[in-house]
């Protein structure tokens, strides 16, 4: 993370979620200085007018930067932010491939797959399994099964991969985008042991110093600490979380 001596125009608005840490892990991998604002869900800061100016969708992460022409750019959607950062700053292609190359487009397929598939489906699994005030077995099964199916798609790809990464011979933003979701497998109630290549990939990414550092922004990443907790203990944590509180509020409003 940037210290105060090192001024930077990049300002990340984030929280400790799989989508939020994508951006901090990437910034750390690229060695870019940046400012961080921790957005508090419990205070509903993501819906405050000043934040909606940056992201009208009211979700994290969002990022502002000074563009080459001196104007400010405000971006939301973690996938788009990652593509912006590598396009502008990863000129040596540490975690990306040159625009127009085959690998560049392969990275895009996996990135959109994460954004439109893995994230939303594992998110629904979390909703039905952890947060929903009413236990709906069909909803739990449907989205846990879809999460398993998506993990198996990654598993097959990684089994074929010589490098152990999703695309080509190196870590890319496609891997970084998926990591926080896969690392939260236990929270979604999915067993990573069914997917040995995926588990090895998850551990392998931790060997990258930027991943290890960036996952703890803006606060300590806990998914892996919790892997030995029982489902009952995790349920207790979910019951106290802001998400459940919000769900209950929604129910009360009816």
């Amino acid at each position, binding site marked *: 993370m940037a210290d105060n001596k090192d001024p930077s125009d990049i300002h990340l608005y984030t929280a400790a979620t799989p989508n939020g840490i994508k951006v901090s892990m990437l910034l750390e991998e690229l060695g870019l200085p940046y400012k961080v604002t921790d957005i508090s869900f419990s205070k509903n800061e993501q819906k405050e007018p000043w934040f909606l100016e940056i992201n009208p969708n009211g979700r994290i992460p969002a990022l502002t930067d000074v563009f080459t022409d001196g104007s400010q*750019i405000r971006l939301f959607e973690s996938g788009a932010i990652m593509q912006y950062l590598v396009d502008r700053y990863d000129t040596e292609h540490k975690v990306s491939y040159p625009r127009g190359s085959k690998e560049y487009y392969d990275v895009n397929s996996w990135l959109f797959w994460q954004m439109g598939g893995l994230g939303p489906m594992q998110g629904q699994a979390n909703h039905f399994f952890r947060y929903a005030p009413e236990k709906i077995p069909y909803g739990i099964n449907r989205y846990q099964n879809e999460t398993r199916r998506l993990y198996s798609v990654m598993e097959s790809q990684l089994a074929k991969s010589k490098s152990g990464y999703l695309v080509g011979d190196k870590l890319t933003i496609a891997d970084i985008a998926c990591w926080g979701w896969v690392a939260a497998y236990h929270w979604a109630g999915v067993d990573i042991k069914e997917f040995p290549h995926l588990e090895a990939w998850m551990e392998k990414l931790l060997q990258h110093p930027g991943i290890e550092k960036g996952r703890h922004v803006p606060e300590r990443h806990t998914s892996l600490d919790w892997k030995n907790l029982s489902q009952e203990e995790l349920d207790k944590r979910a019951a106290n979380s802001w998400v459940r509180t919000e769900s209950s509020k929604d129910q009360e409003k009816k």
Partner: protein
Amino acid sequence: MDQGLKPIRVWLTPSGPNPWKVVVILEELRLSYEVVSFKFDHVKKKPFTDLNPNGRAPAIEDPNTDLVLWESGAVITYLVQQYDKDKLLTYNTLKEQHLINQWLHFQMSGQGPYWGTAGWFNVLHPEKVPSAIERYNNQVKRVLGVLEGVLADKDWLVDDKMTYADLAFVPWNDRLESVLLCPDEDKFAGFPRVKAWHESMTCRPAWKRAMEKRDKLMDEQGLMWNGMPKGIKNLQEYEAKIAAGEDTTPKDS
């Protein structure tokens, strides 16, 4: 636009919304393409899974560049970067290109999954689960509200021109009435700017050509509006037949 290019091959199942995102872009750019229309029954099987390991339509094969691509968002990004030399659906400037990409990601992660899940609980799920229906219908309304706000004082998502990000929202919005199970004229109730924006794209010849193609391909497979073959009562029956390896083609088609 189309200077001696070999046709781009688009693999699709006609019922789903996402393939039509790709087709409308191809139509807007007047690129040469050919459709490989196949049944939903085969989406998780070879040969399609050799092209897309995720087993979801669409995927493309471009013989001009020897590229195979999947995920509609990645495909249309490619088509524009590779072939939209006159910047009909994008901008020359990098900042605007990133803003277009941001809205495309919002479509892929915000509109698509919520519209799909709302449709699931409203239409396809065998029993009514009120809390799930309410949750996802509310999310659909929330996302429409975000778009309504952004379009309040302008016609397009990024600056003053229709781009591929605007077009990406059309296929799901065009079937919103069947997602929410409401009359067609009510689907954008409370969201007049979204309605105007949507209709300014569906009245274009490119979208009309895409939908004519869709009608023809749906008929070819004997599919009803909800994507299931005629004569099949619900998704459970359809999935059971697929799992049993039965031929689901309607007898009269």
